[in-house]
């Protein structure tokens, strides 16, 4: 049987300017997924997971060609300037320069590595790997591609969903074709909106609004600032911990997978002008949205009026 054994792909995970939220998220993946991941991927180094070898030794082996590097995972924003951000005693600037032509794939995990996110607000030279917000002037500029021919793959989110990280790496390991959107995020996870699969869709349709957090009833859009209809994510399709999502728990989506996440502020407020939302769901005109919501508000869906537990 030995001949059938396939070499596990190798991966190192490095951290820039980060709260390590994506590492925490990754560690919260389901045991089934994580098992599958470990069966296919050899994690050579992760700052919170591996302990048998030091980073400097693995890094040296990779640079000397003794170890092949399939996946370079970067968590956190980085700097376009030297000697600003360090990882395990090495300048991240140099790590990225040295590994950019060695790693088969480079994956930005989380909004900081993808778009710069909050750290980028504080300095012009702080960036994501390929983007700074929605501009392609990150650490690697323009149409940079890695050895595999793929551009930097962004798994955005603050943090990124563990299943998106795992399934992206596994898809590439298995040789599947990975389709990316304009912000270089895998379509499989980001072609959906948070709104898709939200258990409150009926409340949205009939314009029955929640006025407080944590309830099972009501749409979180109008009063509580939910960004579900404007945010690309599959949070309500691939649930967190296989169980739930923000909106299912009565917490509005705060749009953390989008490049403008740190630029917005007021996360629990839908900006209204004379009572009309300034932004409307993606894909419809404001005129169409207002017209439809006006019609919906005229009618009453009696099932949605009271507590769900008491509804027939």
């Amino acid at each position, binding site marked *: 049987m030995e001949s059938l054994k396939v070499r596990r792909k190798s991966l190192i995970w490095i951290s820039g300017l980060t709260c390590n939220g994506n590492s925490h998220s990754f560690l919260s993946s389901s045991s089934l997924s994580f098992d599958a991941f470990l069966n296919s991927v050899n994690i050579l180094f992760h700052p919170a997971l591996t302990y048998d070898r030091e980073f400097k030794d693995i890094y040296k082996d990779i640079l000397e060609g003794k170890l092949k590097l399939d996946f370079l995972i970067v968590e956190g924003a980085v700097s376009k300037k030297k000697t600003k951000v360090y990882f395990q005693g090495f300048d991240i600037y140099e790590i990225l320069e040295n590994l950019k032509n060695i790693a088969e794939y480079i994956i930005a995990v989380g909004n900081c590595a993808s778009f710069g996110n909050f750290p980028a607000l504080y300095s012009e030279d702080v960036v994501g790997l390929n983007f700074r917000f929605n501009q392609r002037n990150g650490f690697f500029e323009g149409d940079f591609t890695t050895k595999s021919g793929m551009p930097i793959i962004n798994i955005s989110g603050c943090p990124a969903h563990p299943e998106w990280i795992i399934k992206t790496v596994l898809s590439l390991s298995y040789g599947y074709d990975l389709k990316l959107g304009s912000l270089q995020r895998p379509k499989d996870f980001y072609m959906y909106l948070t709104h898709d699969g939200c258990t409150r869709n009926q409340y949205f349709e009939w314009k029955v609004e929640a006025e407080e957090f944590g309830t099972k009833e009501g749409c979180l859009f109008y009063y509580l600032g939910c960004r579900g209809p404007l945010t690309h994510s599959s949070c309500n399709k691939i649930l967190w911990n296989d169980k739930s999502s923000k909106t299912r728990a009565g917490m509005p989506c705060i749009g953390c997978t989008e490049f403008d996440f740190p630029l917005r502020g007021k996360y629990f407020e839908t900006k209204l*002008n004379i009572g009309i939302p300034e932004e409307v769901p993606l894909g419809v005109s404001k005129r169409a949205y207002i017209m439809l919501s006006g019609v919906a508000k005229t009618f009453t869906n009696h099932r949605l009026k009271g507590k769900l537990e008491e509804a027939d």
Partner: protein
Amino acid sequence: MVRKLLKEKKREEIVKVASRLFSERGFYNTTIPDIAEAVGMSVGNFYNYFESKEDLAKYIMQYSSSILGEEIRKISQMDVSTKEKVFLIVRRFIEIAQERPELIDYFLRIFLSNREVFSEGCEGFLCVGEVVTELMLFLEEGARKGDFRQQDFFPAFVTIMGPLGGLVFLKGEGILPKNPIEYANEIGENIWRALKSDEKV
């Protein structure tokens, strides 16, 4: 295509005549034979255009709303200041009231006075959706630009529609000393001052 256009034209003709008859005689005192006769068509033929008197009554409201909504939309999309748009909307409303008095009369004397006729399929904003939508878009844009003060939609909405409705009502009662259009600028100024943000002049 020609057939469809002809049918549409005929429907407009029926609307024009019926809204006048309804306003003059009242909804219940106007019969389909009355309307058919005034249009010059057979009663049987009338039913090719509308299923019932109620159906016609609702259509007249939708028709009026789409005319006014279209005018508000045109003004909204003009490249002029929010203040000028307020004045233009007021002026255009009064002009339409003069060009099509039967539609305004219908709104005041039938739509507002016979709510039971409109209780199914025309409740709330269903038959006047276009006017309301266009005013929402207009108000939203004005507030977004900082020209209008932030407030709830309904107070702002009645601030625009209230004076206009009042003026055409007074005109209908024959007690306005001047031609309605002569009040357009003053009403425009009143509405603008009521809605504008504090720093605007």
